[in-house]
């Protein structure tokens, strides 16, 4: 009845992904058990066990992810996602929320970044309290859930749990500001859910002028064919060696399929995979979703998906299953699953049009095009997540850098994943795209500028992580989603390395603490993408710059957007190298045990590898482009909406790289030789921009809570003043006296 086609990503089942979530939680439970032990000796033994288990589990998470990535990379070309089935949290009608984990090109870099950062955090916290260690482990598991979960609701659950755990387990005395930041974070996450829901409903219908919603007349489920490359082609007149086709269905966990009057089997009466069962020859095991490539008799079938009580059974009329061909059953209509929404957008109907995309483009809610509304919600979500995690807690000056960075990364990585998953919707609207990109690049530049003046390493790194998320969002909105997520992952890995290598939260204490550490230089290079080409963030940024510059941005000059992104990159580069130079070349104050060494090398090395992979092969393009990557970096293989000529493209590549180099050069001039305090004292706008107050949280509060500022004020009014980091200049003056 409904003739749909499209190039859908194949999936392979991979249960091991669940260990990425479960193992850290297991370690956390061991830590909790140790903490609750009453006997001192027993406590000591359990504590030792918990500490060992925590780093082993964290390392296993990294290993599992790498293995999963390798399996995915070596699978058949059409298989582009690994799926770990979960359980259904709620299911009503045709909408279900389940905990399935999915590893895709979007989630892989972010998951790797989270896993490596978490592992480093846990290793460094080995001598810390069990509360800190257990909280860190549990937060790692939660972030992994957030990054890997396919459903936005579950992803948000992961992010919120991580924030909650880190807030309680890391902060010594969190107070009202923590509460406000926590509320902002949840507001952001709810905005992300709302953005997803808006997209979901826009796919299934439209809002009419009177305020009601009218569903579109799309089918709920369709069969989409794609040929197996490994299968022998069937020519006219020949008899196929295998009369079965293949059936794939990964949605609605637990659903069974009726094929005509029979039931689809996982194992049929003869013990073979697939097939169908009837009353006289029942299945040995009935097939339940999710399953992939299950042999099914070739014919024209009437398929009914039996989803159980409380739901509607779904009928698919005339599903053709052909020998050597895989038929995907794809759900259409409202969903909170990122991959399912993306699948819908790829489907063409018989006329060659993209019905889901058309529905998304045409939908208007409250008089605003739905993609623009989604863009606004995504930006609020991203900004709220960022500002909430910008160490807006009552941190002590001597708290480790890891705490702030962990808080920042948890939300940023999950938000980046959701933004990347929904970015294609935003790109459907010209106005929405331009607005979203403009806001993103401006925010990125502003945050990087603030980081460049921050006197607190932890704060600077948190700001830079947020800036990377904004830059990544701009890339996503411009049509280069994988570049966007890889950029976020690479920069965050660089920042983790930088934080680990520099050691102390304040620049004053960090000064000279990491002298000679190779991890420091490599981390700064990876996070800044300069001065060496092709190592670190520069590679991924190139793709973003080119995508932006070739964007059809209406009356806004596209080069302006690219230029703004370059400005942000320049500030980012400056801020990263500033920290590196101060830590390495400044006046040595004291050293932090364990700050130097080979451990901080791991994140930047992974970041560099990720960036190269993104530019060259498995993540973005066929492997043969690896060599080309040395000549023309990611820009050449970026998916711009409007192709550029080679020379122009190269020009933008050079522009992006040059911006980062400029940042490096300025940082080197100022901080490579002088004592950092002296260099800092002569900076333009130093007094205005280095202060702690004019950060984004008050700004967001002001604009977002304009109407409620009177009430929001008591949240901070009665609390003791935050321990402020006084400007170094005045401190030094004090010392001189």
């Amino acid at each position, binding site marked *: 009845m409904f003739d749909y086609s499209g190039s859908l990503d194949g999936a392979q089942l991979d249960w091991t992904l669940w260990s990425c979530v479960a193992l850290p939680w297991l370690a956390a439970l061991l830590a909790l058990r140790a903490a609750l032990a009453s006997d001192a000796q027993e406590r000591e033994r359990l504590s030792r066990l918990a500490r060992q288990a925590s780093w082993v589990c964290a390392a296993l998470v990294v290993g599992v992810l790498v293995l999963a990535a390798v399996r995915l990379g070596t699978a058949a070309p059409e298989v582009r996602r690994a799926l770990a089935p979960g359980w259904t949290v*709620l*299911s009503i*009608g045709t909408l279900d929320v389940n905990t399935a984990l999915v590893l895709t090109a979007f989630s892989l870099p972010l998951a790797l970044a989270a896993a490596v950062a978490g592992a480093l955090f846990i290793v460094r916290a080995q001598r810390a309290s069990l509360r800190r260690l257990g909280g860190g482990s549990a937060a790692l598991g939660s972030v992994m859930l957030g990054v890997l979960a396919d459903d936005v609701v579950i992803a948000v659950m992961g992010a919120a749990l991580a924030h909650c755990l880190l807030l309680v387990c890391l902060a010594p005395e969190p107070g009202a500001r*923590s509460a406000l930041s926590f509320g902002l974070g*949840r507001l952001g996450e709810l905005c992300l859910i709302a953005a997803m*829901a808006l997209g*979901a409903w826009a796919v299934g219908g439209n809002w009419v002028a009177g305020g009601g919603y009218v569903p579109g007349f799309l089918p709920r489920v369709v069969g989409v064919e794609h040929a197996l490359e490994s299968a022998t082609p069937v020519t006219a007149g020949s008899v196929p060696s295998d009369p079965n086709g293949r059936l794939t269905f990964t949605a609605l966990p637990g659903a069974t399929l009726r094929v005509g009057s029979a039931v689809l089997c996982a194992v049929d009466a003869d013990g073979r995979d697939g097939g169908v069962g009837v009353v006289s020859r029942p299945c040995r095991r009935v097939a339940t979703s999710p399953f992939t490539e299950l042999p099914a008799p070739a014919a024209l079938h009437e398929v009914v998906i039996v989803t159980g009580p409380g739901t509607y059974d779904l009928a698919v009329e005339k599903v053709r299953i052909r020998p050597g061909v895989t038929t995907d059953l794809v759900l259409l209509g409202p969903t909170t699953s990122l991959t399912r929404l993306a699948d819908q957008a790829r489907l063409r109907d018989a006329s060659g049009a993209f019905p889901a995309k058309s529905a998304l483009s045409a939908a208007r809610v409250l008089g605003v095009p739905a993609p623009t509304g989604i863009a606004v919600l995504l930006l609020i979500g991203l900004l709220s997540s960022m500002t909430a995690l910008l160490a807006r807690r009552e941190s002590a000056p001597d708290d480790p850098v890891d705490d702030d960075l962990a808080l920042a990364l948890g939300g940023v990585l999950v938000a980046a994943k959701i933004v990347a998953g929904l970015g294609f919707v935003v790109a459907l609207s010209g106005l929405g795209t331009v607005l979203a990109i403009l806001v993103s690049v401006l925010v990125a530049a502003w945050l990087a500028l603030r980081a460049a003046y921050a006197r607190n390493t932890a704060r600077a790194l948190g700001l830079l992580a947020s800036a990377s998320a904004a830059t990544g969002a701009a890339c996503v909105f411009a049509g280069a989603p994988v570049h966007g997520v890889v950029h976020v992952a690479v920069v965050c890995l660089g920042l983790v390395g930088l934080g680990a290598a520099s050691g102390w939260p304040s620049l004053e204490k960090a000064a000279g603490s990491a002298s000679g550490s190779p991890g420091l230089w490599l981390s700064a290079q990876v996070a800044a993408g300069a001065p060496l080409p092709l190592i670190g963030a520069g590679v991924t940024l190139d793709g973003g710059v080119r995508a932006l510059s070739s964007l059809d941005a209406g009356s806004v000059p596209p080069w302006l957007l690219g230029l703004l992104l370059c400005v942000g990159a320049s500030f980012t580069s400056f801020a990263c190298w500033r920290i590196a130079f101060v830590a390495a070349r400044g006046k040595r104050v004291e050293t932090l045990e364990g700050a130097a060494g080979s451990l901080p090398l791991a994140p930047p090395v992974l970041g560099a590898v990720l960036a190269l992979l993104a530019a060259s092969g498995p993540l973005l393009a066929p492997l043969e482009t690896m060599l080309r990557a040395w000549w023309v970096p990611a820009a050449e293989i970026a998916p711009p909406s409007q192709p550029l000529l080679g020379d122009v493209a190269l020009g933008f590549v050079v522009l992006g790289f040059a911006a980062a180099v400029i940042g490096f050069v300025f940082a080197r001039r100022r901080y490579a030789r002088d004592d950092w305090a002296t260099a800092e004292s002569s900076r333009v706008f130093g007094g205005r921009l280095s202060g702690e107050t004019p950060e984004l949280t008050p700004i967001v509060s002001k604009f977002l809570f304009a109407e409620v500022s009177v009430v*929001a004020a008591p949240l901070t009014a009665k609390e003791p003043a935050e321990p402020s980091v006084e400007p170094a200049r005045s401190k030094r003056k004090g010392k001189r006296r």
Partner: protein
Amino acid sequence: MTRALLGALLAVVSLLVSLPASAAPLALRADNGARMLELTETSGDLVGRFTIENSTSDRVQITGLSLRRGAEQDGFAPRDMTVQLEEGTSAATLEPGTKRVGVVRWTKPRGIAFERGYAMVLVHTADSEAPVALGVRYRSLGTGDPALPWIPVGLVLVPLLGALGVLGAARRRDGAKRAVRTVVGASAGVSLLLALYALLRFDPALTRFDGSEGFFVLYRRLVGGVELGFGLDGLSLSFALLLPLLVLAAVGSGRLAEDHREWTSLSLAHAGLALVVVSLDVVSASVGLALVGAVIATSGAFAEAPKWTRWTAPAGAALVVAGLLLLPLGVAGFTVEGDATRYPTAMLELSRVLAGDTTLLGGVHRAVVVWPLLVLGTGALLGLPLLGAWARPLASSRAALAVVVVGGLGAVGGYLLLRTGALVFPMALAWSTPALAVFGAVAALVAALEACRSSRWSQGLVPLASVSGGLAFVAIGSLTAIGLQAAVVLLVGRALGLAGALGVRSALAERVGREGVDRVSGLAREHPLLALVAAVAAASLAGLPGGALFVGVAETVVGSLPSAPGATLITLLALGLATAAAARAWLALGLGKFPEELRGSSRLVPFAGKLPPLRGAEKLGLLGFAALTILLGVVPRGWLLRVDGAALDHGGRVNPPGALEVVQTPAEPVNPEAPHARA
């Protein structure tokens, strides 16, 4: 006073019901002479015979026999049930004084499990537009489960017996307090067992298309001319389970209750709330609400609060009761036995007669009069800002009663609105959707702001709970099945969260005194278990992931976007503020240092300045609550599986699916004018 009001109420209802209906040309009776036809099992089918007698002096032309089915999307009778004359026709001519026999037959589909269903045979004649009706009753489970029909009644009677038991136990000289609590706990335990039994027997696959309108227990009967109805379905089952849990929570943490009067009030409130939950007629629901309103007004909890606050709960109940009693005014329908009535009290009958009703009430559409009363009254019962000022004083002074009443009355009030809107009067719900959503969103925002002003644990509880109350309005106004389910989750989650939070408050008050509760800090170090329960309660009230409420919050955001996108955005803001308020309250309670002045207080000196550990029942209650909240938040499917069918049924009534949606359900919208969206 209360009794007088109730008496007057019943008198008015009886008067309305006894208004004469028009005389019917035919007399319909079961073949055994009963006024209702009971189908009995005959060779696998359920069959019943009835006689049609021409009691007039004229010849009567029967033009057709039918079952009162409603539209295909909104069927009242099973699809496979048929009716015809014995000779196989459905038309005949009856001479004066003659009879014909009709046969009702239902071939039961396999696997359907409900206790009892009702249908109605209609005989159409050429002389009259109005058909003559005969009620039909049938059983699906047969006689295999005699206990099931009594569960709704038991859920009401057991707490009433508990109240009597309290009065008896209070006369004991020794250990009266303990005995009273034991009696209340025992009655709640029995209620819980009854509800659990019903839960286990409930078939989640049951829908309204299967023959009992989605109610697996349904009981309708005429008592003194007033039709009473009791029943349980996926929606009411959640609340039937919730109420005894709340009572048990109150028992676990209610040592501070001063005397047996609070426990008597609590048992009566439990009975009243249970009556509202199981009742399927406007009279029983009104009686239940009036009882709870009277309990609150006479609880003596408002001595330290402004006088007017005492009357806000009874006023809210009165508004709802007024709305319910005005609902059937001026419409004609049938009783369950098939007699015509001008004041049908049964909700199922009202849902049929109000579907196409256009008669005016006081010169305006019925919805304009009735619905605002129901909404405002429910707002007061939910303790929303400005409307429900009773909740905070009650929570401050009557800890045990507050657990049941503040949590339970809000939940049951919301449930009643949901039931009335989606089952009885979908037209009003669809009409009021934008206003309802905005009302809920604004209420949630104001409540969140109020919660933000309260920096300490006990001050912010009620406003925080009101946030989810406001969200429930948004969810009910969504018209989507997912939104209706969200409303159930929000109402139940809110009550559970409140129970936990008030339990923590009671436990603290018992140890440091009521005035010392808000001075406590550093609870995480001082009493980790209590701090953990407080964290779960705060997270649950704020709708954080891991708590039952989060599922409702996520469903509300998703489900209300189609019908009320603007209100949804406001709720996001409210939820952000509520989270901040909850986090702040917990951080102030849980972290920091335990105050030295409390260590030196007379209450703690006997315990070396430390908080004494939780007692057995207290620990069981609080940890059980925390475990239940987390369980419902992380694995809600086991619960929601039983709500899904009812939510879809109610959602389908108010917002039928579109004609071209490819699903295996009938596809003819009943009310094409209503905006429809399904998930």
